[in-house]
Every structure is written in C-alpha cells, then in structure tokens.
C-alpha cells in the first residue's frame, strides 16, 4: 500500500491534486494526518482540533481553527461556516500554505499573493462583511497579546488604534474630521501589506513531513 501508484486512492487523489496543487505523496501524508486527527472518522470537528496539545499554547488558536471551518476559504464565493469538514476541505485550506513554485510569471505570483492575503483577511474579518473594522482589529491585537501575562487591554487598544490610523493614512490620504473610515477593505489590506512579501513567508515545508514524528 505504500506505493504511490496504488489503485486504492488514486482517482480521488488525482482530483485533489489537480484542485490543490499538492503532489500525491503530500496528499497521502496529509490524509494520514487527517485520519489520525479525526480518529478515523470521515469528518473533522472543532473538538478534534482542540485535542492537539501544542495548539493549546497558541494565542490565535481560535482563529486558526475557525479558518478551517470558514467556507470563504474553500472557494471564491463561499460564505458562512460549517460544523464539520471532510478531507477535501482540509486539503484546500492547507493548500494556502504551499510554497510558490520557482517558475512563476508575475501574474501568477500576484495571484498567489492575493490568495494568501485573502486567507489572512478572512481570519481577521470575523463577521464576514468584507471589511475589518476597528473592533475586529482590536480583537486581533488582543488575542496576540493574550498569552503574554498581564493583559493590558489599554495597550492593545492603543496599538490597534495606531495601526488603524496608519491604514487610514495609507489608504485614504488626508481625511476631513467629519469623514469616517469604515474599515479595512481587502484592497486597502493589499496596499497595506505591500512590502510584506507574504508569498515567500506564508509557507510550510510539506516536503519533509515524516509521519513517524507526528505529535499526538
């Protein structure tokens, strides 16, 4: 069963490989992991994610888990959340973290960038309205600081406010005192993180995954 060319899962792997761009080997490894996480059931639920011990110390755990259940990450026009996901959805979410291939045109690179930034945007925009409001951004910063001892809510607010001010000045330029900045739209978000090189940073090396080192 170890051979890549086994007939067992091949047709469905082919389909997934095409959809997500993973190789057969990667899909197989991820499938192993999926089965391990879901205790050999067909679908994963949030409770399964909560069982991962290392994830418990992650300050943005909730948002990461939510990202898996968010339909917007499955395809372009999805909306809302689901309660449980199958392997395909798991793989689609994971595919956001694939490294870009070496030979890419500028346009392809730009697309990869937009896709990754869209993922992060969706993580911030929890109410699905297409903009990141001040409240949501404050929440992001609070979560980031939540594991660091004394929760200084004031500081989190100041930081989020300063960040928001920055976005506003970058995107809107000079604003009259009466104007109100609704929130960060996706376009503003793109502009904001223009120099961030997310396409090279938001990657996991899937190539060296070895199932024997999987944590429980």
């Amino acid at each position, binding site marked *: 069963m170890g051979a890549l060319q086994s007939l067992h899962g091949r047709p469905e792997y082919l389909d997934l490989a095409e959809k997500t761009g993973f190789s057969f080997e990667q899909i197989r490894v991820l499938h192993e992991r999926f089965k391990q996480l879901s205790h050999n059931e067909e679908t994963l639920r949030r409770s399964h994610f909560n069982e991962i011990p290392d994830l418990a110390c992650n300050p943005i755990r909730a948002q990461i888990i939510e990202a898996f259940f968010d339909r917007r990450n499955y395809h372009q026009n999805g909306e809302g959340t689901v309660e449980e996901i199958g392997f395909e959805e798991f793989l689609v979410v994971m595919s956001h973290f694939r490294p870009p291939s070496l030979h890419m045109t500028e346009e392809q690179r730009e697309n990869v960038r937009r896709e990754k930034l869209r993922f992060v945007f969706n993580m911030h925009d929890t109410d699905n309205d297409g903009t990141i409001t001040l409240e949501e951004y404050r929440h992001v910063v609070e979560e*980031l600081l939540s594991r660091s001892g004394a929760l200084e809510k004031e500081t989190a607010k100041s930081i989020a406010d300063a960040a928001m001010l920055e976005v506003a000045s970058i995107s809107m330029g000079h604003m009259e005192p009466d104007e109100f900045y609704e929130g960060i739209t996706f376009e503003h978000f793109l502009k904001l993180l223009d*120099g961030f090189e997310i396409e090279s940073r938001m990657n996991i*090396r899937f190539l060296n995954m070895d199932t024997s080192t999987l944590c429980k």
Partner: protein
Amino acid sequence: CALHRGAPSCGSSARLTAPTCVLLLLLFAFVSVASASRDDAPGGNNETGRAPPEDSHHHHQQTNSSTHHKKAFPVLSFNYEHVRQPFEISLWILLALLMKLGFHIIPRVSNVVPESCLLIVVGLLIGGIIKAIGEKAPMLDSKLFFLYLLPPIILDAGYFLPIRPFTENMGTILVFAVVGTLWNTFFVGGMMYAVCQIEGAQLGGVDLLSCLLFGSIISAVDPVAVLAVFEEIHINELLHILVFGESLLNDAVTVVLYHLFEEFSHADTVTVGDALLGVVCFFVVSLGGIMVGAIYGLLGAFTSRFTSHTRVIEPLFVFLYSYMAYLSAEVFHLSGIMSLIACGVMMRPYVEANISHKSYTTVKYFMKMWSSVSETLIFIFLGVSTVAGPHAWNWTFVIFTVILCLVSRVLGVIGLTYVINKFRIVKLTKKDQFIVAYGGLRGAIAFSLGFLLTNSQLKNMFLTAIITVIFFTVFVQGMTIRPLVELLAVKKKKESKRSINEEIHTQFLDHLLTGIEDICGHYGHHHWKDKLNRFNKAYVKRWLIAGERSTEPQLISFYNKMEMKQAMMLVESGSAAKLPAIVSSMQNIQPRGPARPRAIPSISKSREQEIRKILRANLQKTRQRLRSYSRHDLLIDPFEDGLSEVRFRRQRVEMERRMSHYLTVPANRQEIPSVRKVCFEPEHQVYTYDTDGESLRGRRASHSHPSASDAAGLVNESTRRPDQSGAAEPRPKAPDDQEDQDQLTLSRCLSDPGPNKDEEGGGSFLS
C-alpha cells in the same frame, strides 16, 4: 613637488583639498621623522623602558664637566621620547580620519569609487612618500590587526546583525561558509600545485601542503571588505545577509584549515588520522567559539540587569564583555570572530531592554565610531604595507592565483546554489547567484594570515599574490559592483521603516504558521522557534531583564519604542506649533455614534495626543530643577539636550492658551497609557510622575476585569461630565473604575479648568 603628487583631487576642489594635503604632509613628515629610528609599526612592540632622553643626559654631562657654569633654568625644553608612542598612534588615527573626511568633501569621486579603494590608494601614496624619504614604512602587524583593529568591526557587525533574516537563511549561509570555503581551498590549492609543476615557472620549490596553505588563506571571503563595499550599494536584505553571513561564519573554517596546514607543513607525513582530527578540530573551534561568546553574552546581559543606578558605565560593559569574549576565544585558538558574534547576538535583546536610552545611543555610536576608524586604518595600512613589504613577483603564480580565485568562486556558488535551492522555499535566482559570487571579496584578514607565515622564502611570493588578489577584488570588483547592480536591476533595500501593521502581521504570521505546523503534526522550523521563544520568555528573560520589562511582549515594546521615538522627535523639534501633520485622526476611525451638534470646535484627537505628550514633557522639565553635575550621580533627562527653560515656559503658556479654547475634549482613554509610556521608562526614577505611573499600572493590575458593558461606561462618563456639550461618542470603556477616575481627572485638567484639580495635572500649568 610632493604636494601635487600627493593630492588626490580634481581641479575645482583643489582649494579644499590643498590645505588638507598640506596638513597631511606636515603630519606625515612629523611621523616619518619620528619613526626614523624605529623598525616596526607604531603600536607594535615598542620598548617600555626608555633610555633617559637625550637632552637631560646632555645636561648632566654639562653640569658634571663644568661645575662653574650655572645652567639657566630651562624655560622651554623639548622632550619627544616621552610621548612618542601615543603621539604616533594618535597621529596615524588622525591622519586616517582626515582622509576619510576629505573623501566625503569631494562628492564626485566618492560616488564612483568605494571608500575602501580610495583609502588603499592613500595608503599607497603614503607608503611611497615614506619610501622616498628613505625611511622604513610600518607594516600591518598581525598582532595589531587581530587584537586591536579587527574586533571593533566584527562587534559592530555582530551586535547589529539582523537576526530574523540571518536565522531564516542560516542553512544557506552555513553551506556557503563551510562547504564553499572548503571547496575554494582545495580547488585553488590543488590547481596551484598543478600550476607549480609547469616547467617554465620556476615554482618547483612549492609543495602541495604549501599550496593548500596558500589556498586556505586566499579563499576566505573577508567581512571587512564585504562590509565596506556592500554598505554603499544598498542591495536587498537577503543578498546582503548571505554574503555577509558567509564572510563571518567562514572564520572557523579558515582558522582550522590554516592551523592544520601550517602544522602539517612542518610535519613529514600526514595520515588519515590527522585529517580526521582536523574535522573534529573544526567542530571544536566553531562550537567552542560560539559557546564562549554565548557565556560572555549572558554574563553581560545579567550584569546589565543591575546597572540601573550607574547608568554611565553601561556601555562599557557591553564593550568589555564582548572584547573579553574575543580574547578568551583567541586564547584557546577557537574562532574569535564567531565568539564575538555569538556574544553580541546573545547579549543584545536583554541588554537593550535593561539599559537606558542614552546608553543605547552611546553603545551604537561608539561601536560605529570604532568600527569606522578601524576599517579606515586597516585599508590605509594595507596600502602602506604593499609599498613597504618585500615582494617576490612571479607572473605565473600571481596571474593564476587571480584567475583561479575567480573561477573557483563562481563554480562554487553555482554548484552550491543548485543543491541549496532544493531545500529553499525562496529560491536563489541567477542574478542572486551572480551577486553572491561577485561579492566574494578578499581583504585584510588574508593579508594578515599571510603575514603570519613562517616560511620566509615562500612567504614573500605568497604575500605578493595575496595582495594582488586583494587589490583586484577590492578595486575591480568593488568599483564595478555598483554599476552592475544597477544594470542587472537587482532588488534594492527597502527604505520603508517598520510600521506597526507589519509588526502585528509578522507576529500573527509566526503564530499562524506555528499553529498550522502543529495541525499538520510537522515539527518544523516554526514549531521549534516558538518553543524557543516560550522558553526564553518563561525562564531566561526573568533572569536577565530587570523589573517588569521582563514580561513585556515584543509587540508592546515595539510600540513603546515607536511612540518614544515620535515623542522625542516632537520635543526635539522644539516647538509645539510645528506638530507633524497627522493625516487621519482618531475620530476618523471611531465608530460614529448618534450625531450631535457641536457647539464648540474640537481639535482632532491625534493632535490632542501630541499636545498632551509635549505637555507631559514640559511638566517634567519644570519639576526637574535639581541637576547634579557629578559623574556618579548623573540625573538623566532624555529631553534635556538643547532645550532651554525659557523656551519651554513660553511654549507652555502658548499651549495653555490654545488648550483653553477647546472645552470639548472627550476622554479618550486610549491615549493616556501611551502618554505615560512615552515619557517614562521605569528606570528613570527621578521622575515623580513615574511613581504615579507605576501606581496606576499597579492599581490596574490589581483589579479584575469584569466584562465591559458599554452602557454602564457611558452612563459613568456622562454623569461625570455634565458640562460637556460636545460629542460624547460611545466608546468601549475600560471597566476599571479606578483608572477611569484617574484618567478622567487628568483629561479634565487638561481640557477645562474645572474645580477638581488633580495634584499632578492641575496646579502647575493651568495656574
């Protein structure tokens, strides 16, 4: 005559450089006269016990021989020997710096030619002048170089090493440094041996080991030269860190290979056992060096925890611990450079959290200053030594050396990149490879190592070849790399400064990737980095950082630093009238409540924020009457430079007038903590406000945080400020009543001269 020969100037700026040249020549003449009887470099081995100076001896004789003559009391006497050594050293350093100054005054030349080239040319000229005068020029003594000139440069590089790109590319850098240098050594050494076998070259006396020794000296990329050239071309961070990191880390390999071949060339046979010992030696040298550096770094960090009462000597601790790390590593023949880098890297985060802002600036400036001086001196001496040293020019040897160095570098980079790209996410393109190969400059380390060789007959030939390669790389490659970078359109360094959004997202991405790795079950890069961070936070920071800064998360310290910088900029700009144009203001981003008619115009929130910051600063200024001038007890006032009392008072009055116009300043609690953080670092105990700040923080921490209910908050606010007619827009409130009270009273004092004067805010400036 000599004046014109010595002047490296273009016609129009002759007037500027002529006085410099005259000065130069005078200084120079003095130095050469002074060095008349000396054989070695100033700063080399000079005898400490001095013979009694000539004139007093003469006087003795005089008084002894003729007792009848009463010697007149010498009003003016000349005693140069007494100060000879420090005088000469200072003169050389002064000379070097004047040269550096001169280059920057002539703009055209410094744009085309990198500074290192100009300095070498100056060295050549000086060497030429000395030789023309007939004196023996000082050589670049290896002891001087390795013990005094090299450490400041390496410390500067290590302390300010950008950690994130360095660790992200660590694998690549190590491969280039270790494997690349090994390849270069063996390729050059082997091929040179083959060349030496050629009949007509008269190189028969050079055996394989000597060639390999030569290869090991010449193959190492030199950090000094790389820094000097790359500083000026501003290429992107990745390439910079690759070449620079390689030049730093290859020191271990160079040290091991050099000592290995040096030993072997004295021994008769070389066995496999010896080679294996060599490999073991490599690990010992590099890991040992790093460990020594890390130990000193931790000691330095630990010491800095207790320096809150003696701020003046803080910078010295940084320098001394680092230098000791270097020297200790050199004692055991470990890699001094790696030790120095490890010390700087280890020490920096903790020391920076502990020392005051002024100390930090001092450390930064002193390091830059020393490394700049060292670099200048190194290049000048290189030029001088070229003219001075005994040369044995052998066309074949030299030409082949240069060609082989280039070829081996190119082949090495291409081959290694092919392998490395299989493991990298961001692959290295052909352009990157070219720059990495082209940036492999050799420099003074190669020269000094060559100088240390003991075999005198080959030494001269080797030195000549080494100098030729150095000149070739520095001049040809150094000068052409800038136009090539432009031509190939290599990505340049991003000029934008770090924004808070990028910082937030960097952290966010780190956690996100760690989380995904955990979900995949993949113990990768991010997983271990996260573990290290948590270990650092839980244990190490507690020990090494004083006070409560130890629990401060990185995002907050970044934010504080930014605020501090902004506020200092504002205060230093002197006048509140010149507030920077804040493009958007707080009210633009606040959710809009029910629109209320504003009877009174209000200033924008951010302007208000800035004004508050300045007022706070002024407040502290007035309280700070006490100023001690004793070195032991220096009261540090971050805003004291150049600001006079009178000007501040005037500003204050102006501000008060302005503030009194604006009655509606809704309490915006977000600003208060930042104001607090701006002016007061916990270590500045002299500020009385600080204790209040501490107590504010303390009080806040002691209260639990009930869930905020906006309605209750709103009610609170409106009952407390019945006179406020302006828009009291609903804002999420901090649930803590105590802090509400404090901050409201503060803001109220600033905004309207109400009845309840808080003791800090009210009396002194709204009088």
